[in-house]
């Protein structure tokens, strides 16, 4: 049974889209609703990272900013992260987060699904860390 699970996992990894590989590697949710439920349960903000598989800036943002240890640690401590493909996941997440520009990050109050803060476009780690602080401040207010 274990062997079967291992083979299936390897198989899914082999054919997984880039976004799925990122989600698995970084422990981000791929499902908006389950991430929202978890955020409500843990009383944390939901962080929605909206990207596209054709978007080179998104890949750079994931690789150069989101994967940084200091950024990841802060994200995991204070937010429930979910990564969404802008086009392929359409219909699986609310329309108010259909961002015209990607990468976009929405910081959402899980209680009412209201976006309290948004960061748009590629940014370096320091700038994004400031955005995380701003999002938390909005939540605490």
């Amino acid at each position, binding site marked *: 049974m274990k062997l079967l699970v291992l083979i299936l996992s390897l198989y899914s990894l082999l054919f997984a889209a*880039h976004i799925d590989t990122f989600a698995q590697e970084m422990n981000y949710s791929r499902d908006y609703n389950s991430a929202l439920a978890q955020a409500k349960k843990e009383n944390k903000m939901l962080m929605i990272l909206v990207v596209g598989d054709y*978007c*080179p*800036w998104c890949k750079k943002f994931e690789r150069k900013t989101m994967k940084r240890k200091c950024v990841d640690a802060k994200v995991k401590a204070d937010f429930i992260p979910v990564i969404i493909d802008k086009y392929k996941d359409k219909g699986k997440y609310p329309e108010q987060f259909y961002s015209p*520009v990607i990468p976009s990050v929405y910081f959402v109050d899980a209680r009412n699904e209201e976006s309290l803060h948004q960061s*748009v476009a*590629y940014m370096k780690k320091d700038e994004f860390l400031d955005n995380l602080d701003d999002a938390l401040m909005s939540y605490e207010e």
Partner: protein
Amino acid sequence: MKKIFLSLMMAMSLFGASSFYSLDNVDSLSYYYAGKNNFISKEHAKTMKADVTNRLIKAGFSFGQTDALILVVKINAIVVDKTQVVNVEISLAEDVVTNRKEKIEAFSLTYIDSKMFKTQTPYKDSMKTLDTLIDKFIALHKDDNEE
């Protein structure tokens, strides 16, 4: 398709001078010049190579190592109504392992930047443009490799 293109263009304008290419761990380079024009002689090409490599060495790159990444400098020009239309391009070429089935290896361009302009003084303006492109390359390299 239009929407994707529009989003990409909007994103490009938002990011300004930055680039989505990554120059992480690009240390060792090998210079290669290719051009189709009537204003860069062999002597000019030698001077240009010396200028570019010296600037890059000062910025921390090394030259002459085995399996270095290829820095391609391309200057092409055509004459339109007695005016030269010049395209100056720099790119980086290297062996990469792709995500295709069986992880196919390919010789690929992993950085490209160019500028096209019309001019009456093609050599002078080409060197100025090349300088700008090299500046951007050095700045991005610094940016990508900072902690």
